[in-house]
């Protein structure tokens, strides 16, 4: 019970946290691109768009930062047995994240936000790039740490029975990390692009500030199209890596109970998600596709869940080693299907750009506004696939989740904390959404006023109030 509650809490808080992280990483990069365009062209319109999207970025960062603290504390709070066991390896990337990434990101964000009139154009531009780099570095170290849980490398077990680091380089070239990190950064960029596209499309549909938002829609689409193409193949490669190191994860993602060769991929299925469910109905099986996805070859074999279960029992002793199959099966499909739809939307947008008719295509603009929901669904599905697919392990092959929680923390404690976090997160989400939508709709006028106010103030001795 305590363990399940701790899992619920960690899942809730990390999914929530990861609504905000990719927006931050993606928008930081796009805002940096907009400010670079201002720096190079001196077109004041780029400056106002930089400020406008910069404010949307800041509204998000606020929640991302505070919810990130919860994540860092939770390892020790809820998973003290895990923390004691792996801290000697897992802690190092977290500390590096703080020293290399968080200081950079937060210090330069402060400089950027308050420095419009105090810093030269060039230094101010450097600040937003430092923020963008900082946010990407922070994801890097988190992915190093997480990948070690998926595929532990560069460690040994010491006399006290704890994991100790033996090779930090091995953590950084862990194939799970390399491909996982690329996947997360691209996903963040896609998220940022879709947010920027949605806001721009909303204005274009209302025919307000058409020139400005046509410009930002173009930037978003130009970044989005290649990114999503690369992402589909990176995701594919990550699948091959995971199939190699965590075969359960991928077998479960196809609900493949028995070994196959070659293996087909079903568009969807009903039934078949538990071991004793006989009434499996696979709809539209696509021959060879699972082989390609899991092994990178046309007819590669995939070991089934039942066979893997037998292997794991022989190796690790009795127990259930099969993750939740339905979560795996649907998560990978949410990503693949929505990803394809986003690609189609991007290509459509690119075609409209070439023909210079985007501002007239009301259907495209309407779809682009609503497409903003897709990255959040895909990002969540991605983490569910990764984390739920590792179960029952907290560290693949080393420690089971059921053995990892804090003995000092009772179920009552977690009920209290879980309720408190959920309540606080609902309030934060409401405030964040409210401000995002409100600022998206009225913000440009406000940004113009602020810019005017601050340049007036720059002439005198009195600085403008930012907060």
């Amino acid at each position, binding site marked *: 019970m305590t363990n399940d509650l701790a899992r619920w809490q960690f899942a809730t808080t990390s999914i929530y946290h990861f609504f905000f992280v990719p927006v931050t990483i993606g928008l930081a990069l796009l805002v940096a691109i907009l400010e670079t365009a201002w720096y190079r062209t001196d077109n004041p319109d780029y400056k106002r768009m930089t400020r406008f999207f910069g404010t949307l970025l800041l509204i998000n*960062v606020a929640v991302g930062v505070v919810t990130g*603290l919860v994540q860092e*504390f939770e390892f020790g*709070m809820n998973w003290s047995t895990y923390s004691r066991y792996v801290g000697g390896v897992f802690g190092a990337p977290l500390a590096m994240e703080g020293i290399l990434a968080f*200081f950079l990101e937060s210090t330069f964000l402060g400089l950027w936000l308050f420095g419009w009139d105090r810093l030269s154009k060039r230094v101010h531009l450097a600040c937003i790039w430092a923020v963008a780099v900082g946010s990407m570095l922070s994801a890097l170290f988190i992915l190093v740490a997480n990948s070690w849980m998926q595929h532990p490398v560069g460690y040994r077990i010491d006399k006290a029975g704890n994991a100790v680091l033996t090779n930090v380089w091995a953590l950084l070239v862990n194939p799970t990390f390399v491909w996982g990190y690329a996947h997360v950064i691209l996903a963040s960029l896609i998220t940022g692009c879709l947010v920027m596209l949605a806001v721009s499309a909303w204005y274009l549909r209302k025919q307000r500030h058409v020139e400005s938002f046509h410009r930002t829609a173009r930037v978003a689409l130009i970044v989005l199209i290649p990114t999503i193409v690369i992402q589909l193949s990176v995701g594919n490669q990550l699948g091959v890596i995971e199939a190699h190191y965590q075969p359960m994860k991928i077998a479960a993602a196809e609900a493949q109970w028995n070994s196959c060769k070659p293996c087909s991929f079903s568009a969807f299925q009903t039934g078949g998600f538990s071991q004793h469910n006989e009434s499996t109905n696979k709809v539209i099986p696509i021959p060879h596709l699972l082989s390609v996805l899991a092994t990178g070859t046309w007819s590669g074999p995939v070991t089934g869940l039942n066979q893997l279960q037998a292997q794991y029992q022989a190796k690790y002793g009795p127990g259930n080693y099969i993750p939740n199959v339905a979560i795996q099966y649907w998560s990978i499909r949410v990503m693949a299907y929505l990803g394809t739809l986003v690609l189609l939307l991007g290509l459509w947008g690119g075609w409209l750009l070439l023909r210079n008719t985007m501002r007239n295509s009301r259907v495209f603009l309407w779809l682009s506004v609503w497409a903003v929901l897709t990255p959040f669904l895909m990002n969540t599905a991605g983490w569910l696939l990764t984390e739920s697919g590792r179960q029952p392990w907290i560290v693949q092959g080393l420690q089971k989740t059921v053995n990892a929680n804090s003995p*000092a923390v009772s179920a009552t404690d977690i009920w209290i904390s879980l309720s408190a976090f959920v309540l606080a997160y609902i309030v934060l989400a409401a405030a964040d959404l409210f401000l995002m939508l409100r600022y998206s709709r009225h913000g440009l006028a406000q940004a113009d006023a602020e810019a005017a106010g601050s340049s007036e103030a720059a002439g005198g001795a009195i*600085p403008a109030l930012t907060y």
Partner: protein
Amino acid sequence: MQLHTIWFLIIVILWIGFFVLEGFDFGVGALHMVVGKSETEKRVAINTIGPWWDGNEVWLVVAGAALFAAFPGWYATLFSALYLALVLVLIALFGRGVSFEYRGKREDPRWRAGWSWALTVGSVLVPLLIGVALGDLLHGLPINQKHNFTGNFGDLLTGYGLMTGVTLLTLCLLHGSTFLALRTTGEMRDRAHQLGRRIGVVATVINIAWVVWTLVVIGGGTVPEPTQIFGVIAVIFAAVLARTNNDGWAFAASGFAIAAAIGQIFISLYPNVMVSSTNHAYNLTVNNAASGHYALVVMTVVALIFMPLVLLYQGWSFRVFHGRLTAPPASSETSGG
């Protein structure tokens, strides 16, 4: 010196950095409604820490992560022992952290008042609760042979822990008032001076009482350490300087007083990192709670290369925004409240 000890020192420095920097942020947050009467003045008060509070808070994040990396045993026992207290700290940090960005985004006076209260309450609770936790390290908590906490929330509220919390809170309030005096002009500066004079007296009395408590009860009647003497002198200096117009020196003195307070907790603790009130044989120490040698070497290299860089650019950001803040003329202030 052994790597364990070096990392103990680094963690002490990180905690000192956190409290000296975020300490004035807490003080400003807690006092912004007292020093700022009108809406504009409140905004000025908040903007005195505007560019820096986020960077300052990272010191806490890094202190926590460094604890995890260098002393996993300490991190695991401490964070699970403080469970409900940390939930409260986190909620307080939510309200506080978000309020900076969200408060000014709407002109509705009720919206602004709400976030002002979130900022005030959060800024009081966090140093108080973390202070209680630091006091508990030294006082001791029920910890068993496996280094697991065996008590409940009530066991965290030790008398000495509470005293430590109140001491740190008053020091942060003093630090915030000297900072506000340094960063504002006119009536706001007058109010900050007035507050500084009052808080200075309270902080001095509490600080001395706390040091005596540490010496008599915790230290068993030993002679005071240099840090403890230094801390008392610093807080007296801060209290005296707060009565003058030497804003810079008053702020420096309140900073030293906080640094000394954090420093003496950890110096009294060493070589333990957590005391077990169940049995001293179960104490967590720098040896039995530390990471492996190789991990500590890697982290030392990273810290030695990058921490000076961090200090450099954080110092630069303090330079860029130095100077006093004045409220803009009423015409350019768009607020309705």
